[in-house]
């Protein structure tokens, strides 16, 4: 079986016949040389992958032998690993749970309901089921999350879905390749306005107002800009957008420093609960099914710890799918409400998670998919985010939309693993969306950007 010969051994032969050419068959050669062969199924699979990769790098056996005898097997392995993620390929090929490279993990989260699957996976045992011991660390804000991922203090973290794209491109920080393993939640945001504006429901009347957003590279910023611009309000010229952590949004709204915000839950509902705001529109009414938060890991972590990464992925996807089912939501609320996690009053979380809520205008509304959870990181979502980053001038110059989207949003990987777990993912990595009545085709991002009347390009 020459295919299981060590391809990093310059004396082995990856083609036909025996490896050294002096024996009639490989079996005869093996008997003569008794060279060590990989033992067990896992080692055999590793060898299979290595062989395939090495063969791809060196089409002829002569070039492979010359290369290996010049630099040595160790250097060759290192060199090839930098060009091709051997570890990840091996883990992918196995489809089985290998030994975890790292069991104790630090995962960061910002205390908002978007983090629900990441948080509940702790107290509800989703990490433990995969053999992981996870410390969930509450983090003060998005810039801190970004810095702690860059510093490798966190192994993985809850992120806003545009953040990994921005970080990978080096927007607003030094570049670090970050992967989106899964999307956490879809929908689940809202535009919340101060109660004094309850008679000004038309966004055209909002010129001159101030709005809170949580971060530049957030879906909140992009959705609010989109919503305002669709109503003819230029988000850079007609209104002021201020970056505020969500609790500060509520306090600033009370103080009258801002007139409204597009923020994450539970702070929209919290502002209503405090009796000083109303929910103007749910983000699902802007784009039904939009991504909000993501589960991100640095690419180097995923590459160096392929089994741990796979186990982490399974925990997060299982938790996300669990959170999707309405009948599980009451138990989830109990798990995430304590001070250790979200630290929020339960009645507020109940309104967010069940979708039966007071809107601050005297109505009880019933929107069961107000917040939903779906893990598949479609690359078309990334393309849409990039078009908006381009539209508002966060990205200068030409953008290779597809390339960045495919590098950061691991859709193919996610589909494969979801299938293994028995979940169905969308058939394609790219979908078309209709956002406020305007259709978006991920195949034509440039035309899409240029189709907007209000833009900074």
């Amino acid at each position, binding site marked *: 079986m020459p295919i299981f010969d060590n391809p990093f051994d310059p004396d082995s032969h990856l083609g036909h016949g025996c490896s050294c050419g002096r024996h009639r068959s490989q079996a005869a050669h093996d008997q003569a040389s008794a060279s060590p062969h990989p033992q067990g199924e896992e080692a055999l699979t590793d060898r299979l992958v290595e062989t395939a990769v090495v063969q791809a790098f060196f089409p002829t056996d002569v070039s492979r032998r010359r290369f290996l005898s010049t630099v040595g097997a160790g250097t060759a392995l290192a060199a090839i690993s930098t060009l091709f993620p051997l570890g990840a390929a091996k883990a992918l090929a196995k489809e089985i749970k290998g030994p975890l490279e790292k069991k104790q993990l630090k995962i960061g989260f910002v*205390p908002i309901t978007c983090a629900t699957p990441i948080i509940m996976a702790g107290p509800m045992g989703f990490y433990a089921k995969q053999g992981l011991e996870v*410390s*969930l*660390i*509450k*983090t*003060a804000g998005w810039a*801190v999350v970004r*810095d*702690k991922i860059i*510093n*490798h*203090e966190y192994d993985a973290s809850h992120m806003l879905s545009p953040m990994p794209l921005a970080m990978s491109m080096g927007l607003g920080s030094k570049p670090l390749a970050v992967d989106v393993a899964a999307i956490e939640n879809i929908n689940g945001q809202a535009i919340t306005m101060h109660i004094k504006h309850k008679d000004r429901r038309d966004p055209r009347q909002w010129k001159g107002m101030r709005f809170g957003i949580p971060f530049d590279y957030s879906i909140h910023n992009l959705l609010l800009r989109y919503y305002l611009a669709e109503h003819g309000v230029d988000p850079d010229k007609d209104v002021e957008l201020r970056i505020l*952590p*969500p*609790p500060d949004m*509520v*306090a600033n709204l*009370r103080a009258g420093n801002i007139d409204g915000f597009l923020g994450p839950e539970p702070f929209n509902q*919290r502002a*209503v*609960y*405090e*009796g000083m705001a109303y929910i103007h529109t749910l983000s699902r009414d802007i784009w039904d099914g939009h991504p909000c938060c993501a589960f991100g890991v640095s690419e180097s972590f995923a590459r160096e710890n392929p089994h741990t990464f796979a186990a982490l992925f399974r925990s997060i996807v299982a938790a996300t799918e669990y959170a999707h089912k309405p009948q599980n939501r009451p138990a989830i609320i109990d798990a995430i409400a*304590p*001070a*250790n*996690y979200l*630290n*929020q*009053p339960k*009645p*507020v979380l109940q*309104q967010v998670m069940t979708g*039966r*809520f*007071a809107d*601050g205008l*005297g*109505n*009880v509304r019933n929107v069961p998919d107000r917040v939903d959870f779906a893990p598949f990181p479609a690359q078309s979502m990334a393309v849409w985010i990039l078009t908006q980053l381009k539209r508002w001038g966060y990205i200068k110059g030409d953008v290779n939309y597809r390339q960045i989207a495919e590098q950061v949003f691991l859709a193919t990987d996610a589909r494969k693993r979801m299938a293994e777990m028995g979940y169905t993912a969308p058939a394609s990595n790219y979908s078309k969306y209709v956002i406020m009545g305007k259709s978006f085709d991920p195949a034509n991002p440039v035309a899409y950007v240029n189709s907007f009347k209000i833009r900074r390009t």
Partner: protein
Amino acid sequence: MHNTQALRAALLSLGLFVLLIGFWHLATLPKAAEDAGVSAEYAALMGSANQSDSGLPSPGMIWETIVQQLSDPFYDAGPNDKGIGIQLAYSLGRVLLGFALAALVAIPLGFVIGMSPVVSRALDPYVQLLRPISPLAWMPLALYIIKDSSTSAIFVIFICSLWPMLINTVYGVASVKRDWLNVARTLEVSPLRKALQVVLPAAAPTILTGMRISMGIAWLVIVAAEMLIGGTGIGYFVWNEWNNLSLSNVIFAILMIGIVGMVLDAGFGWLGRLVAYRE
């Protein structure tokens, strides 16, 4: 005479306290329910029934929080939820570590600068340039270089504690009485003995004043630093309760910060009196 003055001062303090609490109580009385025309379910979903007008908790609510928090100050319910005692211990640990490191650097360096006019002039521009920088301005740089948020917080404490101790040590050492130094020179004592037995005792009160100022600043800074980095500590506690918009817990934490700061300051005041030398 002295006794009646103390009594009057105490009565005035108490009166001010009662007045303050009274105003606070009146300002935070719950507003009348205005639920005309809304359904019972809507009213239940709105939490505003027990809210006051200004959103500030009443003194009674603060008292409940204090009793509840102090009844179990050392509970540990996971990495993000620990009792106030544990949080204060983390903050104090960071402050004391950063402060001790600063003292290790500042006091010997201050001695050298104070005893040598040449070194003093050479280092003066650096001290003058670095001293006025806000400690928190170092935070991003520290995070970037040290790559660990907890160590960065300790570094920030170190850098902010350094200057008052350094400047006071320099001043204390430089202003030791010429007569004493001359006596030491006449007796031909070794430089080390001169430093430890003549200069140190003479400069000790000034050095301790510097340490007292440093400790005050360090305690101010740690709260801000922990609000930024999160994790543990009293600053994180404030941030976490702010995230819950729980003002009564925030006010409770502010009280605790004040009390601990007062105790630290009093401790250094006591140490300062201990080393003071009366001629």
